[in-house]
């Protein structure tokens, strides 16, 4: 009868989404610094970028799946909701383009073809920060419930 279940679930979903986007950003910045220093890039950091690409592909597939009435990812639906609540991302058409361009940029960055991002870094930052914010809101409410429960 309480919102405890919903809040815990929201916190868990948003934390996971935030972690994936944040990990990808970590990979990007370590690679940027390594390249600035003329050092070799760690495969671990490339792996993090790959996971970021996977995340954006999942969101992109969910956008498509929503239109075709196919199975959607629950996490990606939550990310789409969070993205829609901010001012940085417009409707589905512009988001689709942003996702596609970001995935291409990340692949090119990995291969060393580009050094500066136009879309990908900002998009990952929006996902990481806004989902982290939602996770914080849910976690704070869970604290209240748990204090009462105890």
């Amino acid at each position: 009868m309480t919102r405890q279940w919903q809040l815990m679930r929201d916190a868990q979903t948003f934390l996971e989404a935030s972690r994936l986007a944040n990990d990808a950003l970590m990979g990007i910045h370590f690679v940027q610094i390594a390249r600035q220093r003329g050092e070799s890039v760690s495969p671990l950091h490339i792996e993090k970028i790959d996971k970021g690409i996977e995340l954006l592909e999942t969101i992109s597939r969910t956008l498509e799946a929503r239109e075709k009435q196919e199975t959607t990812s629950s996490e990606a639906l939550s990310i789409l909701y969070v993205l829609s609540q901010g001012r940085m991302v417009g409707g589905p058409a512009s988001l689709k383009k942003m996702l596609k361009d970001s995935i291409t940029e990340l692949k090119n960055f990995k291969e060393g073809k580009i050094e500066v991002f136009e879309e990908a870094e900002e998009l990952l930052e929006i996902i990481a920060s806004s989902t982290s914010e939602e996770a914080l809101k849910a976690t704070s409410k869970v604290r209240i419930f748990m204090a009462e429960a105890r």
Partner: protein
Amino acid sequence: MFLLDEKANDIISKIEFAKETITKIKSPDNVLETYIEPLVSWLDILRNRVEQAKANFKDFVCDTNFTQHGYLHEAPQRRLLAVILRDFEDIERRVYISVDTFLPLVFVWNSQRSRAETKRQHKLLMRFVADLLQLCHMSKSMMAIIGEDYACLPLEWGKVRKHVVFGTYSEVQNLRKWALLAHELGHVYYYQNCERINSHITPQVIRKLNENRPINLDQRDFESIIYTWTQHWIPEFVSDCFAAKTLGPAFITQFMLAALDSQPNRVEPTHPPPNLRLKFMMNILDALCLSDIDVNSYRNMWQSYAHTISRPSSLFIVHEEVVRTALSGIDTIVTEKPIENKWADVLEAKKALCLGSIPDQDLISVISALAIAEPNLDYSLLYKALLKRYASNSYVS
């Protein structure tokens, strides 16, 4: 030592404390035991995450010559530090929602099981929850705690998901209220079936929302509605459907009592309007075709309040086609109807209660009967009798 290293050590000490606390528990009972192993594994995963976060910070310090005496000016360096700090935030929050929420409950659990004032009440509650789980062919054991409100706490420990359910302390002797726990177990059922729900119901609901979307509804509001339906309302309706098919009229009656207020069409992001939930459950009850049940009398009872004080909502979120699609999909997914096999016993127990005697039937049947009957005996007498039957020292479950 860097400030962030100290923070990492603080988190590690929390994790180690949790691990020690859990592993120190001497001869945990069978139920608690099923929580300890996955929690210890999860604590190891969390510890590894802290070690990894520390290593990332060490690499950052090494790559950027960061010191605690000045600022970094270059963009990638500044952003990397922000990302590393956010990684620590993430770990701290995970420790909170998966460890800090659970750890004190272990002591509440042990205390309720051992203290003279609570142990029999708790044993009875555990028995009821265990019987419900068995009736629905769900997992063998689950922690149930006498708490502040009826609730279900989902715990995510890596790939393992466990649940703790709560009863209400002030209603612990009002046994008919326990029927509400069926909805809380419905949340567990949702998790066990969420893949099927995601592939069968969610796309249909989104399709209907798209088809009926008002022209003037902006994208932001539309996304909120999709989110509300798919992440909150569908799970709630699944839990209602599960509860109605498990305890039938007993759950519905107690739900009506809990939901009866001045706003039956209230739209909340977390829960569908009570009117809609009850309409759905009445239809389920109708389809169950249980003997000696006049579903219309239930409908009329609710509507005499709800329809008197409110008008049907015209909000898009409760568009008729969307609701119909969601509810028929959920009804198809939740196929089990445990109440069908229990109903005869519930009616027998009800008869006994109306005659003022203690029913011989099983605990679920007695509590269900109590939830729908106007018993001709003192509630506290029945409560004491059930405590004696199921929670005395000699009783072995």
